[in-house]
């Protein structure tokens, strides 16, 4: 299975039972990272936490896309003493569900042409819906890291992932069509959404994002507390929609 990542799509063998397939993907990631002469500390936290992220079946992301997303969100929000990694908090699941749903399909997006090239102040002007945009963006990100580092993004060391994302953020990774910065901004936005949205969408598992900042969530009825907690830390544990449903 280790080699099956080569080419990016060879794993799409439907005869492989899904659990096996996922395990294989994980081993592949870990093995490749191990084969990289990177320090042990750089061993991908994504690989370490992928089990929980991968536990949710996918709606729309391909295996390659999912591996990219796990690697990217865990570089944006790595595990540390403040929270588990983004994927361990369900952010990859969140992104999969968002892209499979109304948002991904272009809800609330005016899509009539023509679509000439536009200055950025006029906002999003592409024909692609978010699902298509992420597909194209992930393809280009992987293609760029293969050219630059010899590997798909998810198999880079932590340092190289950070460098690769930084290059995209700074618009230093040449993408065809839209800019790498535009892709990075969209990736960052949806990652933060997944980390801080109510857990009903699959991310912010155990309200880890809310706990990290001290956001109490629901029910947010503070008529008494507004004066009681004036200049005082609000110490009640957060609750989410599910706690009231």
């Amino acid at each position, binding site marked *: 299975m280790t080699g099956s990542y080569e080419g990016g799509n060879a794993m799409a063998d439907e005869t492989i039972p899904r659990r096996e397939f996922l395990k294989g993907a994980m081993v592949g990631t870990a093995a490749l990272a191990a084969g990289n002469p990177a320090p042990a500390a750089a061993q991908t936290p994504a690989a370490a936490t992928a089990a929980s992220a991968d536990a949710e079946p996918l709606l729309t992301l391909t295996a390659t896309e999912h591996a990219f997303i796990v690697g990217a969100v865990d570089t944006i929000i790595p595990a540390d003493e403040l929270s588990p990694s983004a994927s361990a908090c369900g952010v990859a699941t969140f992104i999969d569900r968002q892209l499979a749903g109304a948002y991904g399909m272009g*809800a609330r997006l005016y899509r009539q042409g023509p679509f000439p090239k*536009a200055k950025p102040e006029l*906002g999003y002007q592409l024909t692609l819906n978010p699902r298509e945009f992420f597909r194209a963006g992930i393809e280009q990100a992987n293609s760029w890291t293969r050219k630059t580092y010899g590997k798909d993004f998810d198999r880079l060391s932590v340092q190289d992932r950070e460098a690769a994302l930084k290059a995209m953020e700074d618009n230093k990774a040449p993408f065809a069509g839209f800019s790498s910065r535009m892709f990075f901004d969209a990736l960052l936005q949806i990652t933060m959404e997944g980390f801080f949205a109510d857990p009903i969408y699959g991310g912010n598992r155990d309200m880890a994002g809310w706990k*990290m900042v001290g956001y109490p969530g629901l029910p947010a009825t503070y008529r008494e507390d507004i004066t009681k907690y004036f*200049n005082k830390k609000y110490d009640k544990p957060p609750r989410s929609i599910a706690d009231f449903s």
Partner: protein
Amino acid sequence: MAIILKEVDAVCIGVGFTGSIAARELTKAGLKVVGLERGANRSTREDFALPNVRDDLKYAVRQELFQDTQLETVSLRHTPGETALPIRRLGSFLPGVGVGGAGAHWNGVTWRLLPTDHNLRTHLESRYGKNAISAEMTIEDFPVSYDELEPYYDRFEKLLGVSGKAGNLRGQKIDGGNVFEGPRQNEYPNKPLAMSMAGAIMEKAARELGYHPFRAPAANMSAAYTNPEGVTLGACEYCGHCERFGCEANAKSSPQSCILPVLLADDRFELRTHAYVKELLYDRQGKKVKAVRYVDTRSGEEYEQPAGLVVLGAYVFNNNLLMMQAGIGEQYDPVTGKGALGRNYCYQVSGGGATVFFEDKIINPFMAAGASFGMNIDDFNGDNFDHSGLGFFGGAWISAGTSNGRPIQTRPVPPGTPRWGRDWKKATAKWYNHAFNIGASCCNYAHRENYLDLDPTYRDALGRPLVRMTYNFQENDYKVREYMGGVLARIARAMNPTIMSARAIPRGNYNVVPYQSTHNTGGTITGTNPKTSVVNRYLQAWQADNLFVMGASVFPQNASYNPTGVVGALAYYAAEAITTRYIKSPGPLVHA
């Protein structure tokens, strides 16, 4: 072929604040009124219920309550020479849809204009000289003075139950209120909201600087309130979910919480939802709108609703679109300066901002009400300060505080913090509960090249042209913003924060992506001259006697203030003219 319906006394296009107020006043006067709302019904009990009303992703980020740009949007170009492109995703502003309109999901900031905002051109010319205003700056007086509108401001504030503290009660200045406001006949109907930590810090700093801090007037109920319609609003829970959300407690004033309960119970009113008004059928000879054509979005069937009287109370863009399509008035041309329709489109200039961080203070940003929950100053608003030699006119209301702590969108970090990674996490966790913003909402004075017309290329779901916005910030706007940036930095320093960031916004094009405000104004402006305005002082169209246009589309320019208080007051003012004068003797209420 459209199905032709039986004539009714009056039709209100849009059932938001203006449509509800007009319909209420007209039904009280005995008229049969039909409210046509393009969206669905929305009620507090069904649509704004806990726990899901606190869903930040659904409402604040995925824009559940806003106009669906798949169906309808506007296009933008920055100058008349460019090709406009559609705003494909809402960002800069967020018009509403559905019963309640944007009144269901606003924050609740309810201002009156300053007296000098009402007679702006006259005032500036008398203070700074006849030639002080550049020819490019096409500002006008509101034809209705502050004193004339005062009772209607009062009426709207009482409908809403606005929380606040008067700063000028019948001429007597009161410390702690806004001493720059025009004289009020009455105190606010509801006492001020609770004080936030950010507000307390702002108050102290502003006083030290010699400014006059006060609490922003808030349509968020500091205590339960029963309005003159007999409708009771609940007390605010400081949940931090006002703007972009409905209110489960009916503690934020909205058409739902203030007026619809009585209107919907009245047999003389009929609400038709999913009634998407497509066009006004205009009789140019008779100077009348004969009927309104709408599509039932559930069936695709078209209906023609004849009406004696039409109140156009859609959002700014649809007010313009329907007038332009019907040809009610002459399209404005920026080259010749002729025509009034589409003229003086204005917006709001966001004045940068400063963020202050306090290691030793707890802000609890999530405990908040929508209406700029903190402290304000008006010392640099309108013409409250001397503009001699400044090179610009107008100003800003400045406020410090929080309206929410919803972390998808509200996570202040000190300048220089990366946007992601370990250091971002550390800074976010450290500062989330220790920071707030100071902001300036600047006026936007009309400019000859900023206007609305119909887009030649892009169309909406009904096949109509999009409204095309030709708009950019102008010299006056940049200068106001730069000046306010200095004021904000001064206030921030006076707060003595651990860290502060005062961001100077570089001069640049208007950008449709980041949210700025849903304070679009103009295009069907009110005035005394039919050559330069579209409606008279009673909001009656010069070219169609039975058409009354309500909403911020009638503003000759935009002051720094949020428009809703003015929109509501003008709606009452116009409704009174209709019920006391027009229906007795239909015809022009002002002879030009």
